[in-house]
């Protein structure tokens, strides 16, 4: 597996530069190739499950070179990225036909995938920044892809805040380098363990939290998300909400906090508070929206809050020295919710795209009665809504259940109460979607609406199927031990990460 690790970055990167060559004439061939690439990455990600290895770029040793590290958390994330990107790419085949310059779209899409995969497997903090910028720049361009008034405005807002975040992150990285004389996460972590956190490093940590928090759209930093995610083309909204904010925001933040700096009580509580704020504010803002995609975007903020809350509870419990099983349950809930949310939120955005393509509008008040006209879209939208609201057999129920159990077990009853009440708010907002889009009277101007066809339907049905069976990841012990548990263990082991990476590197060196 170690030798295959660079393929996660190289294959989409090469595709990104090859695809625009086809131009407008070869665009169906280019689309086919792009789908092949995403499916290849999906296969590769499935193969990588349960493995852990280190790849030294250019055979430079760990001390001086750049390393790519695959472990439980990375492979969980790679799996989520490749599932969402494969579905979004399949959906784009038909959906993107109405835009010009489709090959440029494919190229930017591939760049974004390359950047996110790179973030997930990078073992070097500066390299992580570079991949993060690749993914972000591609996403800025994709948000403004339509080049209409709203899209350009949203893209500019997103890009200004994103650039500020990137600069903060780079400043933080510079401070880390200045204080630890290393950029490799394992050695930075070693240096922090032996010297402790001095004021410079504390400032760096603050900068990194703000930077990654901006990228993840946690509540004090969420202003750009509703504009950007609702203005992008539907498959891109699915990618942004489903996976981009998690990879370059949540994942990067947790990796730095848990494995490099080590968790402390203050940081744990900060995450819990930001998580709760995002959950509550996101849910309340979403309920009042009348734009379909804007509602979904606000609900993403709320759902990201769940993930951060789970991770924050875990961090707090680790820092308090509480029972490790409690912390592990909270982290499991957070990570499982991350994966679940990736699947059902991208599905919801795809259904919104399908509805928008059929009706030409995103305003809930202008729609209605589409249940008879678009039966499949209606069915998958209901499944996704049930998942996100936490209705029992579907995906979202299990992760929310675990989070509630973890909160109660650790004695945070008030957190459990908030969790459940936000879940009720989520149910209300998706009942509103169902009511205004699919039920009620069919307006006269929508009489001729047709169900979307072909690849768009396949993409949505596949994701809906996943929504229904995601619970198995938790319930089937062999799946749980191979997919979820390794990811939880990476965060639980905390600073031992550095020893593990160094040891893994030296043992591979002996084998060669």
């Amino acid at each position, binding site marked *: 597996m170690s030798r295959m690790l660079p393929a996660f970055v190289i294959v989409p990167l090469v595709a990104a530069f090859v695809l625009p060559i086809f131009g407008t004439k070869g665009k169906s061939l280019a689309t086919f190739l792009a789908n092949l690439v995403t499916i290849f990455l999906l296969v590769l990600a499935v193969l990588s499950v349960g493995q852990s290895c280190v790849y030294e770029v250019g055979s430079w040793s760990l001390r001086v070179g750049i390393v790519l590290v695959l472990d439980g958390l990375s492979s969980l994330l790679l799996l989520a990225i490749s599932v969402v990107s494969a579905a979004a790419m399949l959906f784009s085949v038909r959906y993107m036909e109405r835009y010009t310059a489709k090959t440029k779209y494919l190229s930017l899409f591939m760049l974004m995938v390359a950047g996110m995969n790179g973030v997930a497997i990078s073992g070097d903090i*500066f390299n992580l920044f*570079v991949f993060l*910028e690749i993914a972000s*720049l591609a996403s*800025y*361009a994709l948000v*403004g892809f339509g*080049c*209409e*008034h*709203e899209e*350009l*405005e*949203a*893209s*500019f*807002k997103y*890009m*200004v805040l994103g*650039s*500020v975040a*990137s*600069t903060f992150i*780079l*400043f933080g990285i*510079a401070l880390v*380098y*200045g204080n630890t004389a290393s*950029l490799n996460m394992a050695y930075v972590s070693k240096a922090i363990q032996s010297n402790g956190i001095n004021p410079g490093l504390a400032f760096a940590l603050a900068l990194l939290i703000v930077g990654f928090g901006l990228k993840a759209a946690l509540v004090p930093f969420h202003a750009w998300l*509703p*504009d950007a995610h609702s*203005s992008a083309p539907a498959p891109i909204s699915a990618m942004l909400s489903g996976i981009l904010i998690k990879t370059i925001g949540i994942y990067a933040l947790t990796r730095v906090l848990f494995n490099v700096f080590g968790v402390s009580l203050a940081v744990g509580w900060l995450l819990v508070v930001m998580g709760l704020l995002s959950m509550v504010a996101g849910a309340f803002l979403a309920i*009042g*929206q009348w*734009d379909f995609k*804007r509602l979904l975007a606000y609900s993403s903020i709320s759902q990201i809050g769940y993930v951060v809350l789970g991770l924050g509870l875990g961090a707090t419990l680790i820092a308090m020295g509480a029972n490790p099983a409690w912390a592990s349950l909270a982290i499991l809930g957070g990570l499982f919710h991350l994966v679940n949310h990736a699947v059902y939120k991208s599905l919801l955005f795809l259904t919104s795209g399908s509805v928008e393509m059929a009706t030409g509008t995103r305003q809930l008040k202008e729609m209605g009665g589409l249940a008879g006209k678009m039966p499949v879209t209606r069915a998958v939208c209901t499944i996704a809504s049930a998942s996100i609201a936490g209705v029992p057999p579907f995906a979202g129920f299990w992760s929310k259940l675990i989070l509630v159990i973890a909160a109660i077990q650790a004695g945070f009853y008030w957190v459990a109460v908030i969790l459940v009440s936000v879940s009720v708010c989520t149910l209300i907002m998706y009942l509103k979607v169902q009511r205004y889009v699919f039920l009620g009277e069919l307006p006269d101007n929508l009489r001729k609406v047709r169900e979307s066809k072909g690849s768009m339907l396949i993409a949505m049905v596949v994701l809906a199927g996943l929504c229904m069976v995601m619970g198995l990841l938790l319930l089937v012990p062999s799946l749980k031990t191979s997919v979820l548990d390794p990811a939880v263990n990476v965060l639980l082991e905390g600073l031992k990460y550095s020893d593990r990476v160094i040891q893994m590197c030296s043992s591979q060196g002996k084998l060669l």
Partner: protein
Amino acid sequence: MLYALCFLLFVIGLYCAVVKKNLVKIVIGLAVMEYAVNLFLIMLGYRAGGTAPIIGRGDFESGTEKIVGAFLNSSVDPLPQALVLTSIVISLGSLALLISLCVRIYGKYGTFDITEIRRLRG
């Protein structure tokens, strides 16, 4: 002292990016922030009177240990310079994209004033 000035530059850039109402001024603010960070990285590796971190072929005649010692004592840290090169390339890309967005926005709205460019609300 120098670090404080560098941080001041960063804060000026941040102020400009957050407070100004003109699109181009916001972009300039972002650029100033990026330059401040680049400057900070270079200062991390700077050493007064240091030499370039290059070992020529002739240097090896005096023995490896001596070279390494001399290298550690006199040369500047080469790594931040490599980082700055990378970060300059990235900021070039992002500035180009920002400016082209500004041009397109001006074409659509006919203004650079962000108080007039607000179709998205809520």
